[in-house]
């Protein structure tokens, strides 16, 4: 009696090897086409984004809110709620991957909207875990004047090393 482990029987290995080779050859042959398509779709997405913003958020009224984190030792961000002129406009619940990304220097585009020129109030509510892992809730508010061009606002969570606690700042760019 013989067993595969002993006798090393070649079960349809040739067909398998041929199939694998055919796959490799096709992928190699199509590789340039696929690479080109990927680049073209990236380019198309860029153009569509530019066009859509022009259509929906013209520069004269555009306002964008970003979230960033500096160090983040004293605060684990769980969620952000955003109010613009007393109306809730955005909320976001963070995944671990997104938290890591913010901690490494990523900046999240949280909300994009249209605003008239003039005075506006932006309030941000942060929830998460503070020093010693305790639940932590903080709010921050900014009254700003929207000018003619597009407006960028950054919600910054920054560690206050003296007080050993997080600090929440809203910055108008």
């Amino acid at each position, binding site marked *: 009696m013989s067993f595969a482990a002993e006798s090393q029987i070649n079960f349809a290995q040739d067909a398998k090897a041929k199939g694998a080779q055919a796959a490799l050859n096709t992928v190699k042959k199509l590789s340039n086409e696929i690479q080109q398509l990927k680049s073209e779709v990236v380019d198309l997405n860029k153009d569509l984004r530019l066009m859509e913003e022009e259509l929906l958020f013209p520069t004269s009224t555009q306002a964008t809110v970003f979230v960033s984190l500096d160090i983040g030792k004293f605060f684990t961000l769980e969620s952000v709620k955003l109010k613009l002129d007393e109306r809730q406009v955005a909320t976001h619940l963070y995944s671990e991957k997104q938290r890591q*990304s913010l901690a490494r220097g990523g900046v999240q585009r949280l909300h994009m909207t249209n605003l008239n020129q003039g005075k506006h109030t932006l309030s941000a509510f942060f929830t998460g875990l503070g020093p010693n892992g305790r639940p932590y809730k903080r709010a921050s508010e900014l009254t700003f004047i929207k000018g003619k061009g597009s407006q960028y606002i950054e919600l910054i969570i920054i560690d206050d090393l003296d007080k050993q606690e997080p600090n929440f700042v809203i910055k108008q760019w």
Partner: protein
Amino acid sequence: MSLSNGSRIVIINVIKSMFTRLLPLLILATVIAPTSLLAASVKDLKYGSILFDYYQQEYFKALVGYEYAKATNELVNNGDEARLLQGGMTLSYGLPDQAQLIFTELLNESVPQETRNKAWFYLGKLYYQKGDIDSAASNLGRVQGNVPAEVADEFNYLATLINIKNNHFDAAESALKFVGKDSVYEPYLLFNLAISQLASGEVEACRQNLIKVTEFAKSKPEEEYLVLADRAKQALAHTYVQENNLLMAWQYLQNVRTTGLYSNRALLSYGWTAIKLKQFDQAIPALRALNKRSISIPEVQEAKVLLGHLYEQKGATRTALKQYLLAEKAFKEGVASILHARKVISGQRIPEEFVVNLDAMMDETDWYGSEPSIDYTKLTPFLVELMSSNPFHSVIKELRDLYALRKNLDYWERQAVEHQLIIRHRQQGLTSTKIQSFLKKAETNKERLENEISDLRLHTMTLDIEEQDRFSSLIEATDKSFEFLDDKLTKVKAIKEPFKQSEKNILWADKLHKRIKQKLAKTDSLINKLENVMRIVVNAELDNHDERMRYYWAQARLGKARLYDKTLNNIQNEQIETNGAQP
């Protein structure tokens, strides 16, 4: 941030003096710097938002973000860094040709040393991925001074891999000393090094490194490392089997976990080694454990017949016969399930669902034992080996990217309908006359409502004080609504000329919408081609399973026939003995 570490220079010089003259393609390792505070270096919001996607490995989104920011001139402060990041992203997104152009361009410009070093590193990585080890080594070798901290870990990993591939084992061993404590790369490097040492006949060094892999899993008992430790123990056993030292081999096989991806091979090897050591009773439990598992696993197929054979050798004829009969039934079902898997792969939507859900299916540690609930999961058990093969992996990777492109283009196709709707509405929208007529109508309505409210206000004054209080808040709210209405009417009155969608934008949108359709057609055509390749590869794998299954099925039938023959002979012999020899 760059590394600046005196001890590193000493270490490198020592290694340099030891190896560079002897081994021209040797790559030197570097110690890893503590994590830098990258956040502090991010100056542009747009650059930061690209990083946000990049760090989440959302390369497509990040690349779009980069192109967008570049088109709007919003990468002022991080130009070179962003370009380098673009190179890294294009490489990770499977665009090596474009990435190569970017890195080469960066090296031709007068960019800072750190950026150049990163570009050399990425180029090295690119060549390694293309399988050009010599070019990879020479590019890594061009890194001068300090290795940037962000890539130091990966640099060490890549450099060690190249050293292993080039059989520079001593250099690889030295480099391993500088891999960060508890680095995720350490056990993999040790394993790769050990396997290369074995191939070069350095058996003792190989064993030492495999033992280190098993020890790593002890200090960090995560599934990933435990699986690697199982593989290391099997490799250790293999080295002893080669020397015919079955007892030592058996010792390592005993410590392989009886669950997990690599347990099947271990259990079968354990069984075979026990048989060779004539420890039949020890072999049976291992083979029985295998016997309970899915028939799609090659080791299980072998174990089913081997178990019957073992019972036969022990003289347990009834048990052996039962085992052969059950094995026959299992093989019949196995062949039927291969036939079913063939039907599944020929289905229209199956490749996409299969590819997209691959991670989830592979993550289930006991997936091979679980009852499949959806059709495509019936395919998976037969494709374990295939999953780890490079050609199949390349097809899956490209297909996955193409499906993602199709999803993206489908989204834009839906958006295009909305864009056209907005454009149409704006074209048919307000004219100056329409605004005037709207204002006139609105003011008449406002006047009528104000009169009605005024009447109601007077009416409330005729009520009791208590009743009047009930209305006061309502009247206040109505007053506020009137204020809001006034404000809006004033804004509309201020419009001198209504907004008009520019012709240029309308044409632009039309052009882009046509491009969506073109790219969608191209994507579908490429998907079609690759799905066909995938079907060919999967069918070849199923042929392999089918042939193996039928072979063992035949073995089980032979075993059964042998036992029937033996029994028949015994009966005949008994009859002869009882009745005496017939004339």
